[in-house]
């Protein structure tokens, strides 16, 4: 009997070791793959990416030495606009779904639709945006068309993130608010949202990284041309005014796509690598900021 148990224990121990080994190998493989990719992209574009004249320069069509100034600005401007539109919408939808919606068929269908939308290919979103915003609404290839296309692309993900953040707040917190005679709205705004805020902020910043790097949804909406911007121009209808939301605006990701598919500049590879490195660094920064801000906000809200 005793030797039986001994044999069983040693077998269990061996199995545990093997399983741990396999899992570690898988993680190591994934880590090395991703790290190599990041290092390669940044290393091959580093020379351009840290060159101020490249970061602020005017893109060239035919000769060497073009920069990505307008593209860099467009990427951030588009990101900010997209977030201004999509965050309030997603917040409202998520709050309704988690706190107010009755648990019936309709709610279930809405949740399923949001899940399906979140896996919609972005090129489909882009073509839909092209039909609706560019042609039907007549906004042309413009920042506002791009921002709405990105909003459609971003909302499902954002709604899910916020939904999960709200759902992870213990029910006892809701009960506490309601039992003190507060309305559902007061409970949601003053108790649930602050508690869920670190997770919501992390989710928003991570989704910002995704939006920032999106190309397919923008090719047919925000367009593929980047007129040089004049930051002293305050005429909001001028195509060179940076703030004009009806001007076409190529972003970093679209620039990479365009330059590789139809570029004729001699230093094509260098520009493409440099742009990719800039994009990569921005997305990495978003991730780091997300962690930092999430933690800080979390600490602040629990008054520690």
């Amino acid at each position: 009997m005793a030797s039986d148990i001994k044999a069983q224990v040693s077998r269990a121990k061996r199995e545990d070791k093997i399983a741990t080994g396999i899992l570690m190998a898988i993680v190591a493989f994934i880590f090395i793959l991703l790290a190599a990719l990041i290092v390669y992209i940044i290393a091959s574009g580093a020379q351009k990416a840290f060159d101020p004249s490249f970061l602020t320069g005017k893109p060239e069509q035919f000769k060497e030495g073009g920069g990505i100034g307008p593209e860099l600005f467009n990427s951030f401007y588009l990101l900010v606009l997209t977030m201004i539109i999509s965050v309030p919408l997603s917040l409202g939808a998520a709050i309704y779904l988690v706190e107010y919606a009755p648990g019936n068929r309709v709610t279930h269908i809405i949740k399923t639709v949001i899940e399906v939308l979140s896996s919609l290919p972005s090129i489909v979103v882009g073509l839909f945006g092209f039909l609706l915003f560019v042609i039907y609404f007549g906004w042309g290839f413009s920042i506002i068309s791009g921002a709405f296309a990105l909003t459609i692309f971003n909302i499902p993900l954002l709604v899910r993130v916020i939904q999960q953040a709200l759902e992870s707040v213990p029910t006892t917190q809701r009960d506490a608010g309601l039992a003190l005679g507060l309305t559902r709205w007061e409970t949601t705004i003053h108790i649930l949202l602050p508690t869920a805020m670190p997770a919501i902020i992390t989710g928003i910043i991570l989704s910002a990284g995704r939006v920032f790097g999106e190309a397919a949804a923008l090719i047919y909406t925000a367009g593929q041309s980047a007129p040089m911007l004049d930051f002293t121009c305050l005429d909001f209808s001028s195509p060179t005014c940076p703030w004009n939301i009806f001007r076409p605006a190529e972003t970093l990701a679209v620039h990479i796509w365009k330059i590789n598919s139809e570029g004729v500049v001699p230093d094509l590879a260098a520009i493409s690598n440099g742009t990719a490195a800039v994009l990569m660094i921005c997305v990495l920064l978003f991730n780091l900021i997300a962690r930092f801000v999430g933690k800080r906000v979390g600490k602040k809200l629990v008054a520690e």
Partner: protein
Amino acid sequence: MMQITERDTRGAAVEAEMREPVLATHDVGVRYDETKVALSGVNLEFAAGEVTSLIGPSGCGKSTFLRCLNLMNREIPHCHIDGEIVYDGHNINTPDENLYELRQSIGMVFQIPNPFRKSIRDNITFAPRCHGIKDKKRLDEIVETSLVKAALWDEVKDKLDKSAYALSGGQRQRLCIARTLAMNPKVVLMDEPCSALDPIATFSIEDTIGQIAGEGISVIIVTHNIEQAARISDKTAYFLLGEVVEWGDTDAVFSDPKDKRTQDYLTGRFG
């Protein structure tokens, strides 16, 4: 034994106002999805300054009943409350009852201490501020009086702006009681308030319960702990399978139960 004597002297002091019930239920029942009956035919009365224990095995409907009294069951989808709940002279189980006012005067403390993720001060002032009290001095007063009533003031008076999550489990629960008392309730409902706490914290909560009953508040407490019911309550109701089997003065229920099923439960033969 000591607790019982204490209770008796306090009981005598509020004897006069004990007659008129502040809260009474007539034939109260709860159904889920219209058909599943969780509770039926409950007729109980609760007087000011009196502690009533609701005891019984798990799933017997005592918590469900408690959550009827401040209409918290309305928050659960497909849950339907039948019967009359008379508070302050009128039936509150009507569609046009103002839940927000009602829940200020019938407070509730939950099983797991659930302070808000805010400072100790904000935990108490939050609801009064939502209900329109803005005066800083007045709010400070509320903080002090409710913490004193909940027997927590001495322990936290120097760290009111610290997070409520820096407190121990028992302190958190007393903070939740203080938060409820800040609304000046007439009735406080407690849903197994000590089941997540250690014995020492439990005794401090029991002391607090005695104190707030002494203030003339009617305390209704659900408990799994029969000894606790015997220690702290003036009246006891025994729930079984969604009905009240026995209800009366705690001493009478414990020393001379009328119903065989109560006797079985109290002697540990069942439950």
